[in-house]
């Protein structure tokens, strides 16, 4: 049975076939036929954003909080180019996104037509794959392929560019089941010999550590379950990258906290001194490794990753295992149990004693202040007043992001959405919109800085229009805090363009958008302000005026290894050498 329909109708039909319930988008000339079809149906909800960058970050928030692909619909030219930052963000953080971009009609391509851009050319290096569809007969199959590629293997963004004449023309619809997706099928099962070798290493290791990443989250909730089982059964300590927070519960006794440049002292020291590092779905990012030639010098390293190009890219590993985290952990658990559930008990006991000594340093302690709100204190109070609730947290990028990662506790996967790889300021507000669309009854909080928040603040309009009660928790230091911190440490305290003098009145801004706002500067009033934000039945902007010159610690200075952490202000003098200053 073949079905004839227009290309525009095919787009909507293919999205329904893929089980899509929500599209984030913005219309325009070349996309009008598709928007006409969106108008004439009720199965797919369209969320009208205020800027296409907002659409793709919202789709990322939706995708990260559900595990399903996020879908974006934009017009040609500027509509498509405005998604570029989000595409790159999704590529670096491995988030499944499908962008449908309209294009000028095929016969006008190459003529510099109105709102024409070489969208597939521009987005080629920032998508996992992209397509320009020139025939309506191929449109439905291409959309199904785009969903397949975005969600299979290491997830990532895909883009389909659809010329306007292809949307108008009639063609034959290809169902999801009939679409040819066979040739893209990355293997998910790990090599069982390698997994057995890892089990053997785990039995002998005196100082093992699990170093987990976003791959555990991407592999699905089952992978997080298996990780918890594995950690519980072995008693090995576990740390995580920024992207992997929530895969292992923060309340677990084996949890060391986040590692990396602003990671916890105990996590970084354990990484440096371990004798067996088991990397599960992380990629040895430069924020994690610090100085490469002094990275964990005494350890054997195993690396579980679905992407072969992650193996040996930065750090040479002794035991690579290519496969999906859930599949590999399942096999690893089975094999390790079958071999007698052995661990080196004496070694582990000493190892935990050392770790407990590092924990006793209490690297997250900070000086409290009764007159000024310390940013760390603000996050601590937010944690205290919201923990235990069904809570989704997004962030912008900078100091507040690191403080949120340090002081908030995540018990479950898919509840923490932050721009890790690309470090996209302006990510958090639209991402909170996307997460709230996916979870209408949950508490969704965007922990933000004043500078980042302004980058996509237009999306408050989206939140108000669609009655999305997102909570904007702005740590306002009137600075680009992380930039300021680096200028202090590296550039002789010359604060070049890292402060904001003409910030808007966030309370009036909230009122102007049609929601509610409050400003708080007294530590004694902070709890009351947070509670008002949580109790308010709608979007809320809480402008928390915090200490302006607080620095984010602990910190591994650029160009230094894990065991050279700075724990506070006193240790910063001359900490970063000239070779470190060239690094980002």
């Amino acid at each position: 049975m073949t079905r004839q329909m227009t290309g525009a109708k095919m787009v909507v039909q293919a999205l329904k076939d893929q089980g899509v319930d929500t599209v984030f988008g913005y219309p325009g000339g070349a996309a009008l036929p598709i928007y006409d079809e969106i108008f004439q149906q009720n199965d797919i909800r369209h969320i009208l954003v205020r800027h296409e960058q907002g659409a793709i970050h919202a789709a990322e928030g939706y995708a990260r909080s559900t595990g399903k692909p996020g879908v974006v619909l934009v017009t040609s030219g500027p509509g498509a180019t405005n998604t570029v930052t989000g595409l790159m963000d999704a590529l670096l953080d491995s988030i499944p996104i499908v962008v449908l971009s309209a294009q000028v009609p095929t016969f006008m391509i190459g003529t510099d037509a109105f709102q024409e851009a070489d969208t597939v050319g521009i987005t080629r290096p920032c998508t996992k794959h992209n397509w320009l569809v020139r025939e309506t007969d191929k449109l439905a199959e291409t959309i199904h392929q785009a969903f397949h590629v975005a969600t299979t293997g290491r997830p990532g963004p895909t883009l389909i560019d659809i010329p306007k004449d292809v949307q108008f023309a009639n063609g034959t619809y290809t169902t999801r089941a009939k679409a040819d997706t066979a040739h893209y099928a990355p293997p998910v099962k790990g090599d069982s010999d390698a997994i057995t070798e890892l089990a053997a290493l785990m039995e002998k290791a005196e100082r093992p550590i699990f170093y987990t990443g976003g791959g555990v989250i991407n592999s699905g909730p089952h992978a997080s379950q298996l990780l918890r089982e594995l950690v519980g059964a072995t008693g090995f300590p576990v740390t995580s990258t920024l992207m992997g927070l929530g895969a292992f519960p923060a309340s677990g006794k084996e949890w060391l906290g986040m590692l990396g440049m602003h990671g916890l002292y105990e996590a970084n020291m354990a990484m440096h001194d371990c004798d067996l590092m088991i990397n599960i779905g992380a990629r040895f990012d430069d924020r994690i490794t610090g100085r490469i030639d002094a990275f964990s010098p005494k350890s054997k390293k195993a690396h579980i990753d679905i992407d072969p190009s992650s193996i040996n890219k930065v750090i040479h590993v002794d035991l690579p295992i290519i496969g999906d985290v859930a599949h590999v952990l399942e096999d690893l658990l089975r094999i390790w149990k079958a071999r007698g559930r052995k661990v080196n008990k004496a070694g582990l006991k000493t190892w935990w004693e050392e770790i407990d000594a590092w924990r006793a340093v209490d690297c997250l302690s900070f000086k409290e202040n009764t007159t000024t709100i310390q940013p760390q204190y603000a996050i601590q109070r937010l944690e205290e007043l919201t923990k235990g609730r069904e809570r989704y947290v997004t962030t912008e990028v900078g100091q507040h992001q690191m403080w949120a990662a340090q002081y908030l506790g995540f018990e479950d996967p898919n509840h923490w959405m932050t721009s890790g790889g690309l470090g996209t300021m302006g990510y958090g507000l639209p991402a909170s919109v996307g997460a709230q669309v996916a979870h209408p009854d949950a508490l969704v909080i965007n922990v933000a800085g004043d500078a980042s928040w302004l980058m996509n603040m237009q999306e408050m309009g989206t939140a108000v229009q669609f009655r999305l009660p997102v909570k904007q928790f702005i740590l306002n230091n009137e600075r680009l805090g992380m930039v300021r911190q680096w200028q202090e440490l590296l550039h002789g305290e010359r604060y070049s363009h890292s402060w904001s003098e003409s910030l808007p009145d966030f309370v009036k801004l909230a009122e102007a958008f049609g929601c509610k706002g409050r400003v708080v500067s007294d530590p004694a009033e902070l709890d009351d302000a947070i509670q008002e934000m949580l109790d308010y039945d709608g979007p809320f902007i809480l402008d928390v005026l915090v200490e302006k010159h607080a620095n984010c610690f602990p910190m591994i200075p650029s160009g230094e290894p894990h065991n050279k952490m700075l724990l506070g202000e006193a240790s910063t003098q001359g900490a970063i050498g000239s070779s470190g200053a060239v690094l980002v």
Partner: protein
Amino acid sequence: MSALRIKKGSSRKSAYDLRNPNADGVETHTLACIVDNEAGVLARVIGLFAGRGYNIDSLTVAEIDHMGHRSRITIVTTGTPAVIEQIKAQLGRIVPVHEVHDLTVEGRAVERELALLKVSGSGDKRVEALRLADIFRANAVDSTLESFVFEITGTPEKIDAFADLMRPLGLVEIARTGVAALSRGAE
């Protein structure tokens, strides 16, 4: 130095390439990629090399299976063993790339390149050019009273040697196809 006066390894044109150009143990490998013959596939491969700062010493691409829409891209590249491994893994990640073969490590391979050389001159030089062409089994595919165009097939080294000999005899211009390569044996 080859006939084109391009120093080995100087084709690393990426602005982002900050690696030590004189790193130890740089190797030359010939990679063959079987890809879908679709719009943009070559741009994906080249973009990967440019964006990540890898070398392309030579690149050849043509359709090899019209019905199956397959093309073969042969790339000669240089890098440390770790970089070569990373290049292969990154190529394998490109969705329309079906197979990546490292002909340098997968047993012995035949490598051939075709070149056209325009040599102009008269008298003894012209006679010497023709004599050397005969020794190298190069064919004259165009001739005037002052010039020849020679067609020569062989390994890149053979073409380098022939071009070096032609230079004092009046080499005007050279066009090279880049390397095509195939593994030896029945499979």
